[in-house]
């Protein structure tokens, strides 16, 4: 049984982005399926979706110049600075099984979310 993660803070005491062990496991598996040797994850936000802001997830090998790097459970998360404002404190989990939703963002900044959960407003 994997531990339920909780929001964590960085060395400066600021809220960071947390990713569960189960989510990391699935990201690594997706990376293998795509033939990538060293898989990491780019997370972000973009405008759009019913509620205004949509989550972005993308397999990545390295960070871009303007991105913050968060290392969590052996995975590097790359997030641009503007997206980070909306994602600080988020716990990224994976819900598998027949009724699971896949990757789920538990984002404390989200005041409302659309029906399908892929977009949110702050």
């Amino acid at each position, binding site marked *: 049984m994997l531990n339920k993660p909780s929001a964590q803070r960085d060395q400066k005491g600021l809220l960071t982005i947390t990713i569960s062990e189960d989510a990391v496991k699935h990201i690594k598996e997706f990376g293998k399926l795509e033939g990538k040797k060293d898989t990491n994850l780019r997370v972000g936000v973009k405008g*759009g979706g*019913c509620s205004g802001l949509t989550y972005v997830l993308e397999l990545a090998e390295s960070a871009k110049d303007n991105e913050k790097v968060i290392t969590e459970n052996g995975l590097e998360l790359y997030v641009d600075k503007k997206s980070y404002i909306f994602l600080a404190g988020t716990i990224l989990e994976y819900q598998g099984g027949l009724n699971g939703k896949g990757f789920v963002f538990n984002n404390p900044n989200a005041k409302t979310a659309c029906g399908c959960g892929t977009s949110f407003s702050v």
Partner: protein
Amino acid sequence: MIDNNLRKKAYLHYINNCSLISIKGNDALDLIDRLTTNDVSSLKPMEHMYTILTSPKGKMIDILSILRLEDNIILGCSKDSLKPILEWIDFYTFGEEVEIIIDQKDFESSLMVFGDSSVELLNNTFDLDMSLSEGKSMYVAFNSNSEGRSKILIVNKKYYHADHYEVYSTSENLKQLIQIFAKTTSFETILINDKNFNDYRIINNIPASPYEINDNYNPLEAGLKKYVSFNKGCYVGQEVITRLDSYSKVQNQLVLIKALKPLESDIKVKDTKIGSITSHSSDQYHNGAFKLAYLKKKYLNDKHDDFEIRDTGIQ
């Protein structure tokens, strides 16, 4: 000399309350598509579409005129809305490749040409054989006094139910063009000022920003459903707007009314508020009796002592 009564008429309106900005970048069209109601991503170069910028609650921020050119988009909006629109776009821009040029010089102003003879007037003036269908645009060469030979844009637009052409160019070119139109002997060109144009739109039940198009109402209430795509996928406010439409939950309707007595801004039946007046025509129309108002839909079919409903705007 042609008798004025026999000359064909075309109407010109220099659109003072319009800002035209340029948006460049590979993600520009996709970003506007994600933030607005219409299927902007389907636009091909030289095509035009109206779309509505909506909040997550489905309320209107403004209606946008989007003209896709080869390398950029010309976005038109009301002058008063430009600042909030730019802030809105900036808020929702993350890593996208988008560059906004506010003071672009090529197409800084717009001249509206409408009326039955508008096509003939444009063809005659520019020596064209133009038959642009709705939403299409074309470049036309123009000999400018101040800039030499330059390019202007002609766009066939249809706003609400009003067909018209718009000519995009510099302010100087458009002033010169108005003079050229005025000198043509085959047509009587009538320059419509802001006040008369406002009367025209009110009589035709055409909503405008900020009077009818503002964040108190949604596009369906304003009769702007034709600028909402119900199959394009997600955009900001989509879930609310689709739900309102699917479950027939639209509360208000923009209507043209004729006042039979002086009316307050809030329209009441006994002590119950049933609507709000948003625009008043000028005195030349029955002493300003024609007005636009949002009325609660359940009162649309009632007979009212103080006013008559002349057009419900329902398409």
